[in-house]
């Protein structure tokens, strides 16, 4: 009977343990300090994304967009959001992402990484 109870408890959790796509990891890492500007910024999510409504931007410390885009879901990996970066000077950069998972739910967020100066 206890086994049935535990099973029911677990059974009724099915379908709801994840609801929205959240980042799994990124390149550069959240809060990373890198010595040179990355050529791309990539975020891997824990679920598939809708390319039509998923965006990624990189901004400098003044809020100006610096990535060269177009930025979006990788055609070969629907869990990967990526955008291209030009050579940019040292400083703190913010990656802002806004995605829709295939079940139609929105998630958004931002994180920083730092490009260290040469001296």
């Amino acid at each position, binding site marked *: 009977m206890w086994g*049935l*109870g535990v*099973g*029911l*408890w*677990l*059974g*009724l*959790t*099915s*379908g*709801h*343990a*994840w*609801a*929205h*796509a*959240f*980042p*799994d*990891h*990124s390149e550069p*890492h*959240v*809060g*990373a300090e890198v010595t040179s500007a990355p050529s791309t910024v990539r975020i891997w999510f*824990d*679920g*598939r994304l*809708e*390319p*039509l*409504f998923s965006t990624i931007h990189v901004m400098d410390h003044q809020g100006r967009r610096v990535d060269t885009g177009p930025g979006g879901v990788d055609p070969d990996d629907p869990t990967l959001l990526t955008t291209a970066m030009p050579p940019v000077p040292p400083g703190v950069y913010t990656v802002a992402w806004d995605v*829709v*998972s*295939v*079940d*139609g*739910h*929105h*998630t*958004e*967020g*931002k*994180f*920083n990484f730092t490009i260290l100066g040469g001296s």
Partner: protein
Amino acid sequence: MELSFSHLLTGSLLRALALIPLIVMMGWLGFLAVVVRSDGLGVPGEGRRLVKRWDRWLAIGTLSVIPVVLVVGFAHQSMMMSRRSLGELGPFLWPILTQTHLGRVAIGQALLWMGLVWVWSRGRMEADPLPDTIDRRLGLLLGLGALFCLTQSLTGHAADRGDWSVDVLADWFHLLAVSFWAGGVVPLALLVPALMRRCGPVEAKAVLIRALERFSPLAMTCVAVLVSAGLFNAFRRGVTLPTLVDSTYGGMLALKIALTVVAVGLGGVSRFVVLPRLRRNAPTDQTSGTSLFRRAISAEAGVTAIVILLAAILTQTPPSGTVSMTTAPMHHPPMEHQQAR
């Protein structure tokens, strides 16, 4: 357009409206196949006509509601995804329908609905649909209905892991099991007593015993599938007790679990108390078993309806507002301002 609590509420309501007719329809089809069977539960002619009326009106009712909910639900999902109001949605509808996962599934749902209408309407034209229902028409309806249930799994959270993932398969089995069990409770609670009223005292009791004997294995199989699918999903998703008690989501989930245990318990009353009592009593003694059955099955139907509403709310609710990148390969601070909407 700002997304708000009202949008989540609307989404939950639409999900419930999508699930309820589907569960009622699948429950009825399962009930026809397993409980009514070709012998019509052994009731005389008037009872068989009542079964046919149920079949007709359930078809009209569920198949009328489904397309309305599909259209409204698709419009609502489109508003959520594009973050546009209904008035601004026009230019986005076609791209959403043809380029997104939800749009492609919606097309599949529309085709399946047309198939269900076609098969069910063919059955209506037959002079005596019951025997054929069991053999051919019911098989087709069950197949189409099961595929329709699959589209619900494909638009749910499980699809985030891939359309053909084992997660979708487990979610599909979960929904099928809920449909046959909870949906089957409706005719058991309403149709069987109505059939009993059309019989003499001895035959009425025999009808109830027959119905319970046939429905119980189905219900217990459904519970077993729920348990199996749940254990699998819990293993896959790392469900723990703290995730259930730390949030509004967890509280609602705990309530849903508690109510489901109550529903199973009420089902157990019919199977393990009412049925033995009916078998034990004299053939003409209806009072002791049937009155308890009516109370237990009515309560079970009410509780499962609340569970379905809670399930619909949970499908629209994120497990938590902020999630850190805990599975990242290297240690680093969590993302800022990360939120689900």
